[in-house]
């Protein structure tokens, strides 16, 4: 197991204590809710999509530092992106969480790279991916609550 410092990196802790885009949107075009039944973590993702671009993104919910930081960095990362490039980041993040040896596009991941340590803690991977499952549901226009199970 890697050291705790690899998991709880400074930047992750900073996003946990001061999450970005931690708000509802007044006029979201897409909203989705995510839930992890194992631990009770819950997140709602709000997106405003105009002409194929995510012009605004926000989230609300409660969860651990990893799930909160992941959601915070996610909204930061996809805001202003086309749907296609948001899908690219989402795919890169998913691969970072499932394959420790994956060849990743670190430019696209940006701060999200700080979550790479999570892959060494199998019980915590679901915390990191909850917001992303929810983002994908929002992008697909699925209204149902998605779960990590």
């Amino acid at each position, binding site marked *: *197991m890697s050291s*705790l410092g690899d998991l*709880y990196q400074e930047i992750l802790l900073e996003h946990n204590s001061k999450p970005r885009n931690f708000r509802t949107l007044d006029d979201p075009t897409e909203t989705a809710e995510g839930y992890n039944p194992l*631990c*009770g*973590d819950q997140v709602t993702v709000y997106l405003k999509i105009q002409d194929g671009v995510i012009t605004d993104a926000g989230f609300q919910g409660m969860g*651990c530092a990893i799930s909160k930081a992941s959601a915070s960095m996610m909204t930061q990362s996809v805001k202003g992106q086309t749907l296609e490039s948001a899908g690219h980041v989402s795919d890169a993040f998913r691969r970072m969480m499932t394959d420790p040896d994956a060849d990743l596009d670190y430019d696209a991941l940006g701060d999200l790279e700080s979550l790479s340590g999570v892959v060494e803690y199998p019980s*915590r991977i679901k915390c990191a991916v909850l917001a992303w499952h929810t983002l994908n549901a929002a992008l697909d226009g699925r209204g149902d609550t998605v779960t990590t199970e």
Partner: protein
Amino acid sequence: MTDSAPSTPGGPPAAEFDVARIRHDFPILDQTVNGKPLVYLDNAATSQKPRSVIDAVARYYETENSNIHRGIHTLSQMATDDYEAARSKVQRFINAANLEEIIFVRGTTEGINLVAQSFGRANIQAGDEIIVSAMEHHSNIVPWQILCQQTGAKLRVIPMNDAGELLLDEYEKLLGPRTKLVSLVHVSNALGTINPVKTMVQMARGYGAHVLLDGAQAVPHCPVDVQDLDCDFYAFSGHKLYGPTGVGVLYGKAHLLEAMPPYQGGGEMIKSVTFEETLYNALPFKFEAGTPNIAGGIGLGAAIDYVNDLGLDRIGAYESSLLEYGTRLLSDLSNVRIIGTASQKSGILSFVMDGVHPHDLGTILDAEGIAIRTGHHCAQPVMQRFGIPATARASLAFYNTREEIDALVKGLDRVSEVFG
């Protein structure tokens, strides 16, 4: 169960309890996890097994593995004798009046489901009421919700105060002529509260209601006498009592069990079968369809022997002193709040820490070799009652030490550092 730990005037109970020697009986405790000595504080989830239990299970498989009750050969007789001896040990352990009142099941959950589907469907109708408490494990909520859906009965819930104690005056108000069954947790897994179940059984009796007690967290820590409690059903699991997983016990009063229809059909539970008619077997076998967990039953018998040798009164007294020590240390931490502060408590320390989610806390403690449980503890209504998503829970057993509580507190300092 006594309401408080027995005191030994003039003598130091903790000193008489040789924990260092006892720990040698549990092979799993002697190891490092993530480079640190294992501190196992997740006993309410499952307890560790003494060498004698592991040996009993191994001996069964190595020397007498065979199917029981109908075998004509020697091994089958040996296995049957050992399995039935375990049933007798359970009977004496909880002081049941009759051997046939001891039904082996998979665990507490199956015991409760058995009562819900057999006793419940035969005796509970639309308009009847079933009472549970606000601190039940999901396994003592969902089976009754299913029964209510099937029958049209209503589920009522006894509320609790901020300390995690049930409100008996509210319970009294819920009881009435419609109350058919009260199903209560003896000791709360999420809060540690020891409920005054004997009084609560008597109160239900006044309305002719039957009572089931969920004893999963009670039997490992204090003496239980089902005749003294006068409950109709009592369910518990082997694996929380230092025995194997996959075996548990449902106690039921004989006259009730006699009148109840079978829970599952199959082999073992029949007297004779034709395509026209099946005659059911006598108790307890009527409720034990299929080949049971033979090794598990024998292992549970060995676990009961082990606990009896130590003495549940001494176990209870030692664990109480450990709980008191842990409560004092956690209370001294300004950023920690204990959830569940009932005056009568078993060895459970549920808590939350300012600004730190329990899962992060659990991961950091794990890196220090400390195993605790984090989450809702299969008691989401309890979390809702306290307005929190989850807690961290350290749960004690008699092989834990003050040094391990110190390690927990040191681990919490580390959590504060990381999240500082």
